[in-house]
């Protein structure tokens, strides 16, 4: 057959088969027992031309609603500068593999080094790895790290205010890895510090995972928490939406040992679920326990600054079952994505993004309360750009009514609870349309 991805002419095949000492390509599969051979073509249809592939995807995209997004729950509709998409499409970045040959991979290695620096600075920590899959798996990796850190304290506690998909993922990893996890209850929408202290007093907790902001969008107050956790010999792990840390007290400033979370909020499109990016930053003392790739600076034999994968004794291809993690491919290109995003935005841009979203969120919350159809579930706690409403109307009814006018209302977390996020992407007109539609319900 002729296909544009296959360069072999009949003459090429003849030359190659001759070199191999066989007459047919099938003869190269003579070692496969006949009963295992596939005796029919795949039931997958004929090849499509580019024109047909395009119309296939267009048809399916047409069968999705394109909505102004007020949903968050850990992932947000953010502005992506044109430069970012243009740069990450460069095929030298896109079509390369993990940088095993540093001499011809300095592009990848250098951006990972820049990424590690930016993530360390954003989280207020000393070091960062080269990325993990997403916020949920990054938090699970932190749990494993904390649990394995001390034989006497193998249990890991997490707040019930942690995002539910993160908790479910943690629970899966804990169940099979054999980690005893325990939930810290909440009081009025925030982690109960009293319950946390009681747990720590048991002397078996090796790690504590708290969210900032939490699953209701609430900014929790961790005053005194690091001290309590450290006095009990445990590690303090903070899970955050990355961009929020430009405005909120950082994990480093709170005294955390490990900062983890999802970095999708740094301009990565929602893409119905990915690719996103999990980050993990930590105190330098933990560098040999970190999962994943780490890039370090060194020199080449000419004395030039050079970047390499380092501390590889932690990794699966060297240590096999004794590795700190099984992670191999991570989210390399997405690390480049957020590195370019943060380069363009700077401190000022990130703060402005947060301020714009927060202002619009507070305005919307106030206007929605004024409709009398919903009220803030936790009015006594501060929030940034996301908040939970308790509704007097069924949330699915609200979601459907707003979808009719081109709006994704939020994420229904219960039949009468709606989690709403507002970012810099939402216009005044969309916000007004949201409010007017709710009023009319």
């Amino acid at each position, binding site marked *: 057959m002729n296909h544009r991805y296959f360069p072999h002419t009949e003459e090429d095949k003849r030359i190659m088969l001759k070199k191999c000492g066989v007459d047919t390509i099938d003869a190269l599969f003579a070692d496969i027992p006949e009963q295992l051979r596939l005796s029919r073509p795949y039931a997958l249809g004929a090849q499509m031309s580019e024109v047909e592939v395009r119309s296939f995807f267009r048809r399916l995209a047409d069968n999705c609603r394109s909505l102004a997004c007020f949903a968050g729950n850990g992932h947000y509709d953010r502005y992506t500068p044109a430069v970012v998409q243009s740069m990450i499409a460069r095929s030298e970045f896109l079509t390369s593999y993990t940088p095993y040959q540093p001499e011809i991979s300095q592009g990848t290695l250098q951006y990972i080094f820049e990424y590690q620096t930016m993530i360390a600075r954003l989280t207020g920590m000393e070091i960062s790895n080269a990325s993990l899959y997403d916020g949920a798996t990054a938090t699970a990796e932190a749990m494993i790290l904390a649990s394995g850190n001390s034989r006497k304290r193998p249990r890991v506690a997490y707040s019930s205010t942690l995002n539910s998909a993160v908790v479910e993922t943690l629970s899966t990893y804990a169940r099979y890895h054999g980690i005893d996890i325990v939930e810290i209850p909440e009081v009025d929408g925030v982690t109960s510090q009293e319950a946390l202290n009681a747990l720590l007093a048991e002397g078996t907790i090796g790690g504590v995972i708290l969210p900032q902001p939490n699953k209701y969008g609430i*900014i929790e107050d961790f005053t005194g928490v690091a001290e309590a956790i450290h006095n009990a010999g445990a590690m303090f792990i903070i899970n955050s939406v990355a961009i929020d840390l430009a405005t909120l007290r950082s994990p480093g400033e709170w005294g955390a040992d490990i900062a983890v979370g999802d970095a999708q909020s740094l301009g990565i499109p929602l893409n119905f679920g990915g690719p996103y990016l999990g980050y993990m930053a930590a105190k330098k003392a933990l560098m040999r326990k970190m999962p994943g790739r780490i890039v370090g600076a060194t020199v080449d034999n000419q004395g030039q600054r050079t970047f390499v994968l380092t501390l590889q004794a932690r990794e699966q291809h060297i240590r096999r079952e004794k590795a700190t993690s*099984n992670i191999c491919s991570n989210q390399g290109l997405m690390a480049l994505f957020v590195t370019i995003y943060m380069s363009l935005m700077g401190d000022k841009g990130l703060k402005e993004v947060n301020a714009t979203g927060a202002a619009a969120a507070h*305005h919307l919350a106030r206007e929605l309360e004024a409709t009398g159809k919903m009220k803030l579930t936790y009015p006594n706690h501060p929030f940034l750009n996301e908040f939970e409403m308790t509704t007097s109307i069924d949330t699915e009814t609200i979601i459907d009514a707003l979808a009719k006018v081109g709006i994704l209302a939020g994420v229904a977390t219960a039949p009468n609870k709606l989690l709403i996020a507002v970012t810099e992407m939402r216009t005044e007109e969309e916000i007004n349309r949201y409010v007017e539609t709710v009023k009319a319900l």
Partner: protein
Amino acid sequence: MNNKLYDKLIFELSRQGRCGYSLPKNNYPDAVGSIPATLMRENEIGLPQVDELTVVRHYTNMSTNNFGVDTGFYPLGSCTMKYNPKINEEMAGNSVIASMHPNQPARLSQGALEIYHTLAAALSEIGGMAEFTLNPYAGAHGELTGLMICRAYHDSRGDKKRTKVIIPDSAHGTNPASAAVAGLQVVPVKSLPDGTVDVEALAPLLDDSVAAMMMTNPNTLGIFERQIPQIAEMVHAAGALLYYDGANLNPMLGIARPGDMGFDVMHINLHKTFSTPHGGGGPGSGPVGVRAGLEHLLPNPRVVKNEDGTFDLISSPDSMGRVSSTLGNFAVEMRALSYILSLGSDGLMEAGRLATLNANYIKESLRDVYELPVDTICKHEFVFDGLKDKSTGVTTLNIAKRLLDYGFHAPTIYFPLLFHESLMIEPTETESLDTIDSFIEVMRQIAHEAVNDPEMVKSAPHTTPVRRPDDTEAALHPRLTFDEL
């Protein structure tokens, strides 16, 4: 093409007061009440301050220090560095899907769920499995998910004593590492001199403490495990499950299906067999398939097709649990589906054959100068144990570095661990005879240089943007951020 200015770190190009963004205005500047100062960030972040063109030049310069499949031949064994078609990129950039939130309700996301379901069904057909999940983010994540499914299977039968997993000594490093994360104890099984699993050594390892056996077929030497029907029978007779590491699936396209070989659970690396770009180390995608009877154990959430043709998301307490925030790296899944549609049944049937032809041709063309430890027909890849003439002192590392001078990426080196000087070559089906012949010529040239000018080979590379880095210094005095320079 290396400009010394733009080649600096982005932090070194920063100047106070420069800016690279534009944002819509804040319409409600007075809306936020007071957030207590104790909750607010005190310190500057310290991100660079750069204008847009500086950012563009900086990253464009950096890209020229990189080597990708679009740059040249990339025979990295077990990584399946095939051409990453451009139409896939265009399809993955669909603007409607790009703006869709992962929690957008199923009734408003039917087309996206159909993309997921269509790809999962195609992978089931290719793998010979009953159902696939696309949720795992990479190959190793797929392995982990698959092993957790094996454990969930035994748990669901009330069988709690199965804590071991058998893994051949030739396996990819991720296999034992994934087993450890899944809470399983690794029991290695040794290979015969021809690189295939020693069935006699396997037999005594199989008892009621074994949860699963992991294999890749063809194995990492590129050799088809002929005993697979017997191995499957033995593993199943012991009550364990057989897991297929799909890293080497490419040569099986159109030839044989893991499900028909007796495998119960498998993963596929979409960034290998299904042509999605590796992105310098991700994002990948590691879908996991299971045979009939195990579907209910797949991770939450599952995408299912209803009788009326609509699609839904379901979560079940019987499932092994959740392994990801979302339905996986969705844009990667779109690329893989675009590839499958572009090749169609006929094209996919051909890919494995051509990949195998390319590998055997290279092997036969170089075996007189490179040591071929296992002399048999290979599939998509094969392993040389360094140069045939070991007297020159030129090692596999030297050969790999010298290849860079000639504009080729190096093969995988020092893996598998079965030989001292492993040089693992995988050409894939998208390489032309011309490209392959030029690679063969260079490999012969290097063998020649090893005799005539060994020092030059040992000190390679000579023409790359940087030369041999000091790895020891990097590990002894780790400097991991700009602040440590």
